[in-house]
């Protein structure tokens, strides 16, 4: 491990990243971050494409693509034949839900924590079969035991026998919950429903072994927690479904097979995909999942505890098994001074926006069960001082009525 000696925090930030001065980045979960050497490599690759486009598009891209898929598959414990690359998790989900042969009455089951874009996708996909309605399993805080969720999901499927696809997050976006997927998939299998996993936040945060987990479909981003440029994600499709799970764009390789069809989606820029091997190498050089997540979890745990104490609130009540190493949510106080930060969706957006624009700190705020929660993220370039800055600001905003 060549770079294992480098200290996480300010040192890594300076050495490997190049962020805008005077901003504080506590929102890695939204857009990820691209180390400077990978940014350089991307620019170089663009020059390679542009200096000789025909050589690239006719020949060179193939080995780039297969190397990227190999590296991705290995990282995910997957058979490379089952993995194709897409631009983002939203594309992967859209692909599956649109390719599925819906019949009138067929239903989708997702949850109340499903990412908003994906909820929209469900609505659209359900247009033909139910006029746009889909079921959402209610998951409310406090969560005492993950088995509650498994039981509730199983009951929901039993109550709605026309459910064909269950859409589950591996790690929920607004609420940073690690879902008990293995058990949930088991219960789905017993009932003969297909399972589509939105693992947007999973690669890089938790261990994934797709052939072992064996859902029907799995979608995940590399540009969130695995340091690639944006527009880099994957779709894993079980062999049994590859003949009908066709891409959103029908192009040159129509009917030529799973890998070939997804490989050609019209002329576009696939360079983010080609940086997967370098990004994974960087991830490994930084110590891999063990070292990285140990750092981020310890940092986040301390930081969130500190913020909750200073605000006199608390964290979400969830079992330890459902915590994730890079993301955590903290309950915010009611804002009695300022209508602008009411416990609504508008309030959450206003708060998030103001914190960014007026105070140069990046976070995500959501309205959950009638209260505002702040979602904090941690990565190897963060340190405690970042969160203290935030805490100072929040105390001003909520406790001192700035």
């Amino acid at each position, binding site marked *: 491990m060549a770079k294992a000696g480098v200290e996480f925090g300010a040192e890594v930030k300076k050495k490997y990243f190049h962020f805008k001065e005077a901003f504080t980045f506590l929102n890695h979960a939204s857009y990820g971050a691209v180390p400077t050497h990978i940014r350089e490599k991307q620019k170089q690759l663009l020059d390679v494409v542009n200096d000789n486009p025909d050589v690239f598009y006719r020949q060179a891209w193939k080995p780039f693509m297969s190397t990227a898929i190999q590296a991705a598959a290995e990282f995910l414990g997957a058979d490379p034949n089952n993995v194709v690359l897409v631009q983002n998790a939203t594309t992967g989900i859209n692909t599956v839900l649109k390719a599925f042969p819906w019949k009138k009455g067929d239903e989708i089951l997702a949850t109340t924590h499903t990412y908003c874009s994906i909820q929209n*996708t469900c609505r659209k996909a359900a247009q033909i079969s139910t006029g746009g309605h889909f079921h959402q399993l209610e998951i409310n805080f406090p969560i005492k035991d993950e088995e509650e969720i498994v039981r509730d999901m199983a009951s929901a499927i039993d109550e709605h026998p026309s459910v064909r696809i269950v859409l589950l997050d591996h790690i929920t976006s607004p609420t940073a919950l690690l879902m008990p997927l293995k058990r949930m998939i088991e219960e789905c299998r017993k009932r003969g429903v297909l399972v589509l996993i939105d693992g947007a936040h999973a690669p890089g945060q938790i261990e994934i072994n797709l052939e072992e987990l064996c859902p029907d479909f799995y979608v995940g981003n590399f540009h969130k927690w695995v340091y690639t440029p944006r527009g880099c994600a994957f779709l894993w499709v079980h062999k049994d479904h590859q003949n009908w799970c066709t891409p959103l764009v029908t192009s040159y390789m*129509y009917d030529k097979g799973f890998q070939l069809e997804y490989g050609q989606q019209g002329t576009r820029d696939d360079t983010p995909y080609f940086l997967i091997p370098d990004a994974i190498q960087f991830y490994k050089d930084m110590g891999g999942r063990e070292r990285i997540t140990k750092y981020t979890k310890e940092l986040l745990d301390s930081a969130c505890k500190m913020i909750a104490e200073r605000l006199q609130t608390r964290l979400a009540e969830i079992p330890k098994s459902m915590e994730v190493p890079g993301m955590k949510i903290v309950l915010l106080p009611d804002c009695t001074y300022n209508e602008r930060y009411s416990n609504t969706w508008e309030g959450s957006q206003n708060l998030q926006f103001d914190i960014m624009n007026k105070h140069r700190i990046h976070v995500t705020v959501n309205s959950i069960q009638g209260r505002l929660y702040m979602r904090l993220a941690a990565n190897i370039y963060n340190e405690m001082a970042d969160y203290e800055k935030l805490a100072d600001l929040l105390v001003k905003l909520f406790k001192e009525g700035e």
Partner: protein
Amino acid sequence: SMTEIEFGRSIRRTCFGFKEGYFFLNHGSYGAVPVPVRERQKELLDLMNENPDRFYKIVEGRLYDEARRAASAFLGAKAENLVFVPNATTGVNTVLRSLPWDDGDEILGTNFTFTSNVNACRSVADSINGKFHQFQIRFPIKDSSEIVKSMTSYLDNFQKIRLVVLDHISSPTTLVFPVKEMIAECRKRHVLTLVDGAHAIGQVEVNLEDLRPDFYTGNFHKWLYTPRGCAILWVAEEQQKWCAPLLISLQYKKGYQKEFKIQGTRDNIPYLVVPEVLKFFEDIGGLEKIHCYADTLLDSACQMLWNRLGARPVEVPESMKAPNMRLIHLPRFKGYTINFEGARKLNLDIMEKHKVVCLICAVQGQFFLRLSANVYNELSDFVKLVDALSQFNWEDSIHTNPVSHKCKL
């Protein structure tokens, strides 16, 4: 300044950064990205990476709208009718997949419709228990009215045709279609028109509000020098209420413009550099100047091809000739089967052995050379091409067997 740089070797060296020792005669396939545009793309990548939150939440949206307005102005389009898509294939798929078809509806294309579009049409037609028709176009074409007539007779015979997919300039056959007339004939018959302008933007004048199809899609990354992954989709106002993107995301049901603008986290920078690209295009002289230069080169190239190989351009009316491309009927080559695979192998062999980048295609059992010319080309590039082609084994040459060389298809 850009306006003073000479076309040919000079602009190639100063503006295009192409690999030395290669000769690029296939602009039509992948376009080219000049250095000032590459620099702007890299600048925006840096901006995105040093403050991703601010970029995605504020900056990108503003730059997207600026780019859209610039693209619209260039295309004589109302900005509210225009959105960006990654490529024309996506544009075509978008329309085909969101059109509220009735069971049994049919689609019309031609035998020259681009393969990806044929595939998309077939796939959709299958899903609605309909048919995809292709009316036949044969060389030589004496007059563009022939094409219009073929289309209208098909429409009159097959009343279930709901949508016609028209090429503005076909690929790889480089024909400029009489789209205005064809659109008018479709309107008369209440048939929708989807125009694939992949090759048109930057080669011919395009005025969308004037042209008034129902849908128009075209690439900026072919003849307009943007990075790849930049195209537009224009949708007539009355069709916008149901024309949804392939990807449903944050702004579902928030309206045409909003729905297409946010497509998950991705790299939209190819769209965002459009203002810079249009400035470059203008600075180097614009459509007319480029065409003038390309035309002269292509004339000389064709003369060379005739003298040395007995190869002749396909007969088409003047109005149907593409400004910066020519389609040349080649004699038979020994050792290459006249099909897609044979052509692919031939192109690769020429590229690897001679470092000449060109496009030979198989159309209706014959080999054709699709020549492209652009501002970075000069005559010596075409000499290299003819040198390369001369090396191949000709089965019969026009000099020994003129009769066999009538362009029959």
